């Protein structure tokens, strides 16, 4: 008896191809809904990590009291020299971060930007565009993120405008992307220029010197264990430092945005609602299908097939619908992610884990709906139908 069941489920579904397409489009819609909500949620979190992903380094040192890269709290530059004294440390370089007002060259309106600064002699970032740093060494120059918000106006190479009331020339573009702390966009400059723009400002904006760095980035010798060097540094360097490996700093950064902002809460609600809406849509679809074939089911029952056989058919239909709907759903979502990526400058990633998770949700969604539709079949009495 059981070998024939898959074909019953399939035949039920494929009997009316147009109807099947209608059914599937409902499920595809639910899948897209879930992908978009989780996509936005993950994008907002993943975007926080893109800066770390672009840094070349194995160990990262920040102030113990710092809660996130987005919330400033500096450490002393001496840490770099202290760290360099340990065996296995290949290089230690400083990352400076600051906020500065950028004047839109067209509208003359000012907008806040995030400035990232480093020593151009040591390759700290792995931007492919950043091969030739010669022009960054010149005074009053910077690179501007291609994905910066349009409020900045023209950011093309050669643009001349003002940053912190001082002249600035754009000498190149790179691609990083936006996050909660990048304000209207990222600028990249040499540490010598950082000092120019961040000293002698209005006291309100705060003045910075090169003695206070935002993060020390350490590259280790591949012959040594990174974890071991990190633990040695943690023991021997001053206690006001937080020393993290690449994995640890990603967990640390992500955790801050997850726990201390309302974003997770908002998108959590929306994702759950996407799922519930999916169940409702899917229930309607499977119910309508069961309803259409009620006569046939009753006939099968009258012929002596047990309820369990009918259950199997319905669950197989649910499974088939789930899988068949998921495939176009994921393809379309992928396209929508690409569009959203361009529109917002956020990171929309469709990882294998997340796709599998949503496939699971889709199948559960179809099963729940199948279960609800079952009540209907169970009630079907062969005698009533004819």
């Amino acid at each position, binding site marked *: 008896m059981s070998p024939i069941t898959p074909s019953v489920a399939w035949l039920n579904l494929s009997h009316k191809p147009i109807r099947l397409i209608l059914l599937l489009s409902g499920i595809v819609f639910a899948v897209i809904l879930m992908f*978009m909500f989780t996509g936005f949620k993950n994008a907002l979190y993943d975007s926080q990590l893109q800066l770390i992903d672009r840094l070349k380094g194995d160990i990262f040192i920040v102030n113990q009291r710092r809660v996130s890269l987005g*919330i400033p709290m500096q450490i002393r530059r001496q840490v770099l020299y202290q760290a360099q004294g340990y065996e296995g440390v290949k290089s230690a370089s400083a990352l400076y971060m600051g906020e500065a*007002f950028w004047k839109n060259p067209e509208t003359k309106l000012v907008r806040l930007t995030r400035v990232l600064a480093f020593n151009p002699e040591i390759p700290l970032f792995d931007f492919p565009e950043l091969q030739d740093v010669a022009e960054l060494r010149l005074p009053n120059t910077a690179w501007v993120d291609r994905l910066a918000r349009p409020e900045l106006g023209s950011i093309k190479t050669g643009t001349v405008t003002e940053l912190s009331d001082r002249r600035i020339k754009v000498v190149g573009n790179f691609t990083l992307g936006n996050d909660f702390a990048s304000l209207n966009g990222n600028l990249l400059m040499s540490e010598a220029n950082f000092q120019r723009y961040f000293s002698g400002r209005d006291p309100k904006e705060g003045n910075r010197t090169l003695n206070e760095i935002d993060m020390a980035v350490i590259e280790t010798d591949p012959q040594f264990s990174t974890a071991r060097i990190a633990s040695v540094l943690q023991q021997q360097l001053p206690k006001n430092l937080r020393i993290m490996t690449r994995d640890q700093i990603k967990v640390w950064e992500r955790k801050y945005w997850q726990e201390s902002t*309302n974003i997770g809460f908002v998108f959590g609600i929306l994702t759950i609602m996407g799922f519930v*809406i999916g169940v*409702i849509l899917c229930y*309607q679809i499977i*119910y309508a299908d069961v309803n259409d074939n009620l006569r046939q089911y009753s006939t099968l029952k009258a012929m002596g097939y047990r309820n369990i056989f009918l259950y199997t058919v319905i669950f197989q239909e649910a499974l088939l619908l789930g899988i068949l709907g998921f495939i176009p759903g994921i393809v379309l979502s992928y396209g929508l992610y690409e569009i959203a990526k361009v529109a*917002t400058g956020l990171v929309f990633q469709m990882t294998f884990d997340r796709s599998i998770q949503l496939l699971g949700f889709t199948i559960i969604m179809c099963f729940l709906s199948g279960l609800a539709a079952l009540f209907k079949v169970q009630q079907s009495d062969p005698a009533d139908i004819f």
Partner: protein
Amino acid sequence: MILTRWVMYFGHSFTVFMFNVVALSNLVHDRTRLLVGIAGVAFAVLLAFINLGFLGALSDTAGLLYNQLDADVYLISPLSLNGTSTKPFPKERLYQAASQASVAKASPLYINYGAWRNAENNDALFMLGFGFNPKDRPFLLPELKADSATEALTQPNTVFLDRRSLPKFGPQRVGLQTEYNRRNVTINGLFALGGGLAAEGTVMMGDQNFLRFFSPRTLDRIDLGLLKLKPGADINQVVLSLRQRLPSDVTVYSKADIIARDRQYWLETTAVGFIFSLGVGVALIVGAAIVYQILYADIAKNFKEYATLKAIGFHNRFLMGVVLQEALLLALMGFVPGLILSLSVYQLIIQATNEAIPMVMPPDRVVLVLGLVTATCLLSGVLSLRKILVADPATVL
């Protein structure tokens, strides 16, 4: 002719009456299905309300500060993004403005962000700080207007803390000692302002304390100039004349205009506005899909009956009426639980965020969502109708 008209007239009122009965019975016939349909529409309504709620909160954030300030006219640097992200301008502008006959009181407000130490876990978080001369009493908040507050604000190294600051800033207790901008600070009082979606935590302090915490800032460059006019003064007149007299390093706004300026900033220059508007669109699509499914299934199930009605002489218009009324009924039946659910979710959000996010339900939002849901449901009704219109009694029966 006349007779025919009478018959038509009676027939018409008869069908109007029939509409409700048929539509309602069709829906009520299968209870489970009706419940699922109502739940679906209710969820779509909830989704729309939540998104509009966040959008509204973003827009209301703009008014939170100004509505608590005792001033009619505001001076702000044209380079300031909004009331919490300001660029200082010379204090002389305030004195120039104060020379106008209709100005009763002119007071400066100083604004700066500083790192606040959570006293429990030592985390350093950015807290918005307002500084003012305690004798000016620029805020309408009762806790800051009291005589005792004026006295308390002058004590060195103290601040008043917003009770609506997020919990991550640590305990909120008068007398608690911690650090603000790397300097010891004692909480000397509490008030309730709420930063909305702009500031997560707020403190207020006397101007002398502001100098201590934000050295090297000085008091001769101010962030916001507050002008209170004499009773009976024409606000717009004052704004216009100040705009003409003052140099261009400062702009002059009435209360309503400065709130509108901030609102525009929050809605237009943050991606949040885009995300929530998208959410409303998604909610409507969901509602439309669910109602379409229900109506389509209903038509498929009752196809014979509809065909029979046609065969005994009912017009397409009658059948259309039935389906559209079903759509309307679904919209209304789903809207009510959706609205009630939304109100409780708003309450939940207010509690979860320590009253920081202002989620309110203005009547025009209720009307808007009701209108949108009704329109969406009717649209799906029209889409599902096609099958009936072409139904030929002869082939069905």
